[in-house]
């Protein structure tokens, strides 16, 4: 748990050390300087202590001893095919359901599946330290299904629906779950609310760039959406589906969520005397270094506003449980398996999906001669059909081959890919994008100009001779 000058998602960098999976991209808008600097970590290697500017006393929260570990608190682990591991927090919200952040289920590496698959995800309960599991009563559970919010688009710049549900393979009967918030605290938070965050993430960026693995807890203050927008300097970023929490004054403690805490809870209780713990938010993103400090300006952390997703959660947890078994397998087909394209000329490829459920296509993976390849996905939200427009590079030569791999996934965790071979046609239209019109002539003006030159020369010569004769 901790504090933060670049924006980052708060999941753990992969153990393989290949980039920060939590890095985010902005779509548009004028960003304040601190956000621009934040963008630089998009492809940056995992956070290293030496890369960060922050004061050495940045420590947030206090450790949670094992007996005090809440029974609903969990660690969501994605064991990736390349050996790396992504860790996030999660909370047990029903006997068979764990809630976490959607971005925890998306990887940044092209070498592994872009979206987690159920068999690769585990949920662990009842431990306080990843480094010392021997004496703990660690409970490891399997995941049967992943339900990603249908409107969530990883790396799209829109994080308004950063929420996902994991259906466990077996129900944890009798285990205490965490109730969800009953009020929307986004606009004007109740000042009497006591709110906390908890997680296994980075606890001190000065000495430990990777998550400490120790469960830490800290109290944070809810911050109104307007104030949060002001501090982030981007009014469109913070939506009603988000909560902000942290500290705003320079002398306030440097406390906040950090790498590895994503997906964990922002929880607390109403001042009703019962001290019933409820989950208000899901740890989503913040600035880096953690804790919310950017050039002396405190920036609150941002959390998914659980209250706004109650209906969606209930639909899955209560209403549709059991119906999920009938989900048809995902099938994606492309209009072409091999496509002849010409340099600089836009071509279209149509993708079709089966079923009536939402399907999404991940960014195409391009192999082969791909410099400058431009492509666009005009509308990802239309179900069952998508037209991909792409433009092979100007430098492509006849006979070049480009392999385009398109991966589709749905909110049931199904993943399917299709590969299209693009073969470059013969010497056509290098240097042109839009006006392949043909016809006309280009050399005749110069021939006529040369003729004019000859005529001019002869006229002047004749004039000279006349003058000479006179």
């Amino acid at each position: 748990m901790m504090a933060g000058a670049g924006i980052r998602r708060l999941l753990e960098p992969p153990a393989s050390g290949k980039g920060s999976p939590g890095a985010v991209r902005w779509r548009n808008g004028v960003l304040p300087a601190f956000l621009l600097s934040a963008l630089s970590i998009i492809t940056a290697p995992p956070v290293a202590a030496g890369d960060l500017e922050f004061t050495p006393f940045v420590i947030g929260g206090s450790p949670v001893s094992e007996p005090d570990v809440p029974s609903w608190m969990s660690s969501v682990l994605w064991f990736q095919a390349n050996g790396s591991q992504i860790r996030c927090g999660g909370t047990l919200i029903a006997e068979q359901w764990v809630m976490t952040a959607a971005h925890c289920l998306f990887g940044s590496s092209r070498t592994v599946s872009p979206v987690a698959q159920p068999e690769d995800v585990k949920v662990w309960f009842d431990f306080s330290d990843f480094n010392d599991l021997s004496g703990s009563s660690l409970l490891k559970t399997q995941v049967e299904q992943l339900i990603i919010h249908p409107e969530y688009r990883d790396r799209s710049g829109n994080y308004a629906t950063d929420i996902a549900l994991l259906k466990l393979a077996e129900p944890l009967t009798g285990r205490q779950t965490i109730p969800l918030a009953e009020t929307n605290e986004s606009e004007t938070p109740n000042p009497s609310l006591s709110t906390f965050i908890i997680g296994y993430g980075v606890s001190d960026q000065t000495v430990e760039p990777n998550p400490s693995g120790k469960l830490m807890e800290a109290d944070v203050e809810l911050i109104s959406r307007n104030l949060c927008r002001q501090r982030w300097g981007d009014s469109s970023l913070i939506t009603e589906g988000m909560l902000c929490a942290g500290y705003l004054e320079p002398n306030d403690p440097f406390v906040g969520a950090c790498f590895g805490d994503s997906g964990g809870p922002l929880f607390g209780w109403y001042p009703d005397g019962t001290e019933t713990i409820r989950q208000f938010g899901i740890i989503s993103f913040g600035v880096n270094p953690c804790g919310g400090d950017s050039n002396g300006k405190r920036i609150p952390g941002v959390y998914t506003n659980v209250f706004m997703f109650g209906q969606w959660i209930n639909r899955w947890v209560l209403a549709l449980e059991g119906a999920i078994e009938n989900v048809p397998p995902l099938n994606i087909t492309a209009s072409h398996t091999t496509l002849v394209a010409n340099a600089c000329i836009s071509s279209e490829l149509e993708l079709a999906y089966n079923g009536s459920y939402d399907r999404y296509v991940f960014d195409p993976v391009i192999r082969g001669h791909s410099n400058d390849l431009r492509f666009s996905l005009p509308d990802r939200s239309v179900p069952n059909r998508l037209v991909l427009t792409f433009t092979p590079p100007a430098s492509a030569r006849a006979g070049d081959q480009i392999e385009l791999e398109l991966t589709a996934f749905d909110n049931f965790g199904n993943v399917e890919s299709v590969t299209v071979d693009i073969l470059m046609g013969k010497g056509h239209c290098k240097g042109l994008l839009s006006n392949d019109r043909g016809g006309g002539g280009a050399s005749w003006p110069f021939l006529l100009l040369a003729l004019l030159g000859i005529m001019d020369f002869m006229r002047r010569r004749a004039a000279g001779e006349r003058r000479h004769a006179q």
Partner: protein
Amino acid sequence: MRSDWLDLLLVGVLLAAPALGIMLFADAAWGLLRYDRPAVLDGQLWRLLSAHWIHLGPTHLAVNLAGLALVLAVLGRLLTPTSLLLSALFGALGVGLGLLLFSPGLYWYAGLSGMIASIWGTASARGARCGSWLGWASLALLLGRVLLEQLAGPSPALAQLIGGAVIVDAHLYGAATGVLIGVLLPRLTTRH
């Protein structure tokens, strides 16, 4: 308004030399210097000018140098070295800006032809202002060329020859800039 042919030749060589030099480092220069719309929009403004001095290959360069030589040989007497220089530089800029503002579908562009159209336009306009039949005739020829290119498109044969498409919009922007320079800056550039 007769030009100093030696000065004109020098300016012509000055304009052509970078293009020749860049050909030696074609691969390295290509990505960095061509007009690349996304890169220009990203702040790499030098491409608006530098694009005119890089070419698709030796044939493209040779065709353009031949065109430049012809324009200077025929219309050179209507230009001063200063007007030639101004026409080349402002024409290059005008082509770049024209492509940026009015041809959003064009991703990249390279070559001297837009600038040559500008020089042609400047010389013609200057000649026409002075009542020279050559000025009027070459101006009519330039307008006819641009008009036909806009209506019918570029020559596929030339595109095949230079190894790339002819961006006729560049000729249009170049000619327009050149004529403007010839009309607006006579006093500055006329030798008395």
